[in-house]
């Protein structure tokens, strides 16, 4: 049943976050194996819904599966890591300081919860500029992860709490990036594709990452990997950059992958991982990858 092409062997739908990467994978796989794909976006919810209705074989998920969904038979394996980093304007009054010393999780928590409201308070400098905090709007998985990260271990801020605290919230990464790009005193969070130039992997736009001072003792050599995307991605992959704010994205099935879909997912978790980094995402860490492969094998 097809108007223009062959009918699909594997049908995928879901979130627009992971869509670009899955698209690339599918094309590669299609070339190698003649498996025909059919992919559409629309949102993670749409994908899961299609999946549970038996309309697609695989759902792409930009967020963790919800209880409700797992109860309905959803079985998800992680496929890659999407990375979020704190961002400021390129002309931020204390950018040099930030790049020198980074900010600790506590600093960021204080900023996003409005304990600290002036850039001058953060650094020993006579800067007197109010900090403007931009948040993301609802249903943003990245924002949720960010909340988990800010609160420290075993605790979290909900998106609502963060939204309430922010000066403004924006719908989507691009909107946030543009807002940051227009305000020297703004701080927010972005997916790294909105920070580094996709082609060159350099910092070229108006947005700069905030280096994360993990040990709270200033930015050590090891912690200073924000110059280029490749460096950064490597750090995420090694786990030097913590998760959260990095987070996993999933491929999901209704009660276990089957047939061509199973083969494809298996390929994603093996050979497919090698192509992740070229496209601005982070491959799964080795042990997490192994766990995922085992999970896939074992099924739900």
């Amino acid at each position, binding site marked *: 049943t097809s108007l223009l092409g062959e009918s699909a062997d594997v049908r995928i739908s879901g979130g627009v976050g992971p869509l670009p990467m899955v698209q690339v994978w599918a094309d590669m796989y299609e070339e190698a194996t003649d498996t025909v794909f059919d992919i559409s976006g629309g*949102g993670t919810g*749409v994908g*899961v819904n299609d999946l549970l209705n038996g309309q697609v074989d695989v759902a792409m998920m930009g967020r963790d599966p919800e209880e*409700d969904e797992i109860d309905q038979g959803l079985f998800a394996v992680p496929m890659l890591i999407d990375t979020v980093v704190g961002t400021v304007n390129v002309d931020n009054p204390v950018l040099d300081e930030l790049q020198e010393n980074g900010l600790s999780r506590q600093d960021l928590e204080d900023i996003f919860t409005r304990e600290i409201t002036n850039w001058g308070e953060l650094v020993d400098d006579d800067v007197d500029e109010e900090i403007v905090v931009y948040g993301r709007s*609802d*249903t943003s998985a990245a924002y949720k992860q960010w909340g988990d990260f800010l609160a420290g271990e075993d605790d979290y801020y909900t998106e609502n709490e963060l939204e309430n605290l922010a000066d403004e919230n924006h719908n989507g990464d691009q909107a946030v990036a543009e807002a940051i790009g227009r305000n020297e005193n703004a701080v927010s969070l972005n997916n790294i594709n909105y920070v580094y130039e996709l082609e060159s992997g350099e910092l070229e736009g108006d947005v700069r990452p905030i280096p994360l001072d993990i040990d709270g003792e200033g930015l050590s050599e090891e912690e200073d990997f924000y110059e280029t995307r490749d460096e950064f991605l490597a750090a995420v992959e090694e786990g030097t950059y913590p998760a959260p704010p990095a987070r996993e994205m999933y491929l999901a099935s209704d009660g276990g992958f089957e047939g061509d879909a199973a083969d494809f997912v298996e390929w994603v978790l093996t050979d497919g991982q090698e192509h992740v980094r070229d496209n601005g995402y982070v491959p799964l860490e080795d042990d997490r990858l192994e766990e995922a492969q085992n999970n896939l094998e074992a099924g739900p």
Partner: protein
Amino acid sequence: MEGSTDTAASEGRSRLGRRLLTERLSSYWLQGAGYFAIALFAFIVLALLYQSLPLLSEYSLVQVLASSNWNPAENEFGFLPAIVGTIYVTALTMVMGTPIAILAAIYIAEYAEGRTKTLVSSFIDVLAAIPSVIFGLVALIVVVPFVGDYLAPALGSGATGTGIFTVSLVMAIVVTPFMISLAVESLEALPDELRESSLGVGATKWETIRIVLLRAAGPGIFSAVLLGFGRVFGATIVPAMLIGGQTQLPSSPFSTGQTLPTLIVNDFGELMSIPLTQSALIFVGLMLVVIVWLFNFSAMLLRRWLQQRWQY
């Protein structure tokens, strides 16, 4: 000879039979089509109502309408922020758009002549036909920076440019051409005697327009404004692109926010697989239909009343 007329007659009869059959069949089809509008409306309302039941059985209507806490992941469904946002956007848009639309309509109907008139009205027709997503796109590079870099700072706000005010400004641009062409129509339908009567007792052109023509065309202009109102109220794409999508009670005209339609756009795709959220968002659709319906109904009554009052 006799035989040939016979066959001709019987052929004529069978042809007539065919025509009458066509007549009967077509009338069934047309009748079906005639009832389709009612059936469609009923079906839409029932389908939306049915799908809203899960939410309505969990929460009371007052609870969801009066709560400002929107957090689907935690099963908190407060529509108040989106409702307030919708009202905010609609009111601001109408405040900005209506006077301009009416004035421009007055220009076209009462001032412009000849080529200028043709030119301006065809410009406005074109403007009315441009898809709203294009307005959203152009606004992203024109209006957002303008509001964020000039207007908001000038008014002492630190807004970035996306938000309720920007949406209202763009929606005003989207709806004015509709309002204009309808208002022009009703102004032009007025008999010249009205103008002559008023001018003939020494009224100025403006007095004639304000006191006589605007009243006489009042019901028509009122409909035009209502139509614009309806379009702003249900506008989806422009707000989705420009409003910022934050489900909080807006604190100022420049702050980001959410309208009922953008709530659907922003949350449906991500969360529709969670049953209660799905129901909540479909309920938003139901609310939109019901409001439009109430609105149309009261508008009809009001219009009748105006027509009574301002007949000529």
